[in-house]
């Protein structure tokens, strides 16, 4: 019982971050029809920024760690937002709805940004100081308090985005554009503006995920790569552009990683995930919750 609980807790905690990351990717695809290979770079930048600025803050002001964390988090989000605006207007805006063109652009950015991060931040892994101490036990599964809190924030952020997309005017416009751009434009939705918002929100999700993972892992300039390939699998399984699909897919992949990683071997867990994708494809080429492509 304790073991299963532990694996379930692992799954929830890993899944929450995967979902956030994949949601951003799927949102950008839905609105812009762009698969952004550089998505992970926003994630990495946010984590790196926090890891770099937080020690400075703590040294200078001596606030409690979690205060510093939130200040630095905000700073990281701001940095990512600036990078996002630049990338959008200099690059992605020209390749809207151009799958191949935007793919090449984003791959170039992936290499470029990783190189630049390595140059600026060096390759040495960095860590964020502990925010909260202590640990809790859930149904016999052990978890750091810090992880529990972060998992909670991640779930809240996911819920927030879900509400944003379902309830607000902007969200409805995003969904309308994702489903049928022409019809949306006929209804007076300004596509370029909406796609910009979609890109910024999607990239922001990656940055939030990065900021949340920062206290939990060692941060290096190649941190985002592992998440990126998993996010691809998640959005294929969930259906490209589908928000509920990304949520479902994220937890599914987290479950495979948690359970197959335990019962088999973590390298086999990765292979198992890819196999899962292939099987899915045979049964439902459009993903779990995706619409049939026409």
């Amino acid at each position, binding site marked *: 019982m304790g073991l299963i609980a532990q694996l379930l807790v692992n799954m929830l905690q890993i899944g929450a971050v995967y979902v956030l990351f994949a949601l951003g990717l799927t949102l950008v695809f839905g609105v812009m029809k762009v698969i952004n290979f550089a998505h992970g770079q926003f994630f990495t930048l946010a984590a790196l920024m926090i890891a770099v600025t937080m020690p400075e803050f703590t040294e200078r002001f001596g606030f409690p760690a979690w205060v510093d964390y939130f200040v630095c988090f905000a700073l990281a989000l701001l940095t990512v937002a600036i990078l996002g605006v630049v990338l959008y207007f200099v690059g992605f805006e020209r390749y809207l709805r151009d799958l191949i063109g935007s793919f090449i652009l984003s791959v170039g950015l992936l290499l470029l940004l990783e190189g630049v991060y390595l140059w600026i931040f060096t390759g040495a*892994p960095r860590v964020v100081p502990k925010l909260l101490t202590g640990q809790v036990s859930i149904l016999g599964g052990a978890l750091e308090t810090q992880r529990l809190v972060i998992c909670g924030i991640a779930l809240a952020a996911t819920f927030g985005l879900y509400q944003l997309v379902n309830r607000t005017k902007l969200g409805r416009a995003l969904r309308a554009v994702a489903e049928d751009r022409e019809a949306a434009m006929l209804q007076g939705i300004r596509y370029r503006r909406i796609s910009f918002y979609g890109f910024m929100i999607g990239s922001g999700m990656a940055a939030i995920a990065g900021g949340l993972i920062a206290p939990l892992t060692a941060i290096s300039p190649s941190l985002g790569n592992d*998440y990126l390939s998993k996010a691809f699998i998640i959005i294929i399984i969930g259906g490209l552009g589908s928000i509920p699909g990304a949520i479902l897919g994220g937890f599914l992949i987290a479950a495979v990683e948690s359970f197959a990683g335990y019962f088999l071997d973590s390298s086999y867990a990765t292979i198992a995930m890819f196999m899962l994708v292939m099987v899915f494809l045979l049964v439902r080429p459009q993903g779990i919750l995706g619409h049939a492509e026409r």
Partner: protein
Amino acid sequence: MKPIVKWAAAALMLAAAPAASADEVLKVAVFAPLSGAAAGWGLGAKWVGEQAAKEINDQGGIKAGGKVYKVESIAYENGYNSAEGAKAAQAILNRDGIRFIIQGIGTAPVKALQSLSERQGALMMQVAWGKSVKGPQAPLTFTNSNTPFELFGPLFDLVKKQHPEVKTVALLNPNDATGHEVEEEAEKQYRARGYDIVAVTWYERGTTEFQPIATKLAQTHADMMDLSGAPPGDSGMVYKELAVQGWKGVKMQAAGTGADAMVKVGGDAVEDVYMGNAADFGGPAATPIQRKLNEGALKALNEPLNILQLGAWDGLMAVKAGIEKADSIDPKKVAKVLPTIIFESSYGPTAFGGMETYGYPQQMLVPIIVTQIKHGQTVEIARIIPAELEQRLAKKP
């Protein structure tokens, strides 16, 4: 055949050169990953190589065949895979005509370089651990730091003495060439000392989420965990998760190269971890050269020096000693004399040996440094001089 012709031509031209001038430059290569996840090692080795070259040049260069050579150390990106390694090998050997590689890091690319360097008669110092890279079939390849074959025996003996209660061990390694070789040797050495190995597990390099792995390890309830070949940051994560899950036992990282990242990541959870391949080059046991390099590395790279990076220094020093002894910059002649000489490395007087293990004396005999993490600091608890080196030094007139 052609390279030999070219080489002969070059030698002829050198011989024909009227006067020995101090302007001759001997280029040497550092061959390492300079980008991606393992970039830290490569950037460090690059820096150390440059320092070693500077040191030699300051002392007047390398003298051979009536000439004085200034040294230039150039770093080549090997991408940590064999295709990039093969490309860099071409650039080193055929484009830039370099005949001495003072440090090679990464098993797959080192093998790619070796298949060319041995054929073309270039000398390579490297740190890949496998037995397959050494032996009489590869007389131009040398290893410039300790490998599991040197480390594990003395290290495990020491730990067994300190923790007689330990009966079971669980192993975790990255699923790559290095990891597999480390695991094999570790398993052998543990069994030889009567340990019961309860789990052998693998993970992919680049993994960022270690909870599932830690859960699996914790469930084995082993008395000792050995994360041998895992990079320090990764093992820090695993020990941290293990602590959360309530595991308590002896912590080992038999092939561990550095504590700094492990402490940063693992915090209290990595207290008392044993490491076989780490060193505190800023500590009291370090030599003055090592201390100086360590300080410089902290400034330039923001990271303390580790043993693999230091290999670039010792590699170049060995090459210098070999060239001067052979009185020639022909790598084959240098390779012949290397096993016979005693030279000054950053650890002090050193020689090459390892005939028994590898069938060819191509392993640099440097002290085995056993360290343990105490209060977040790497503390050297033993510096074991290899028996073979002691014999060699005793024989020296």
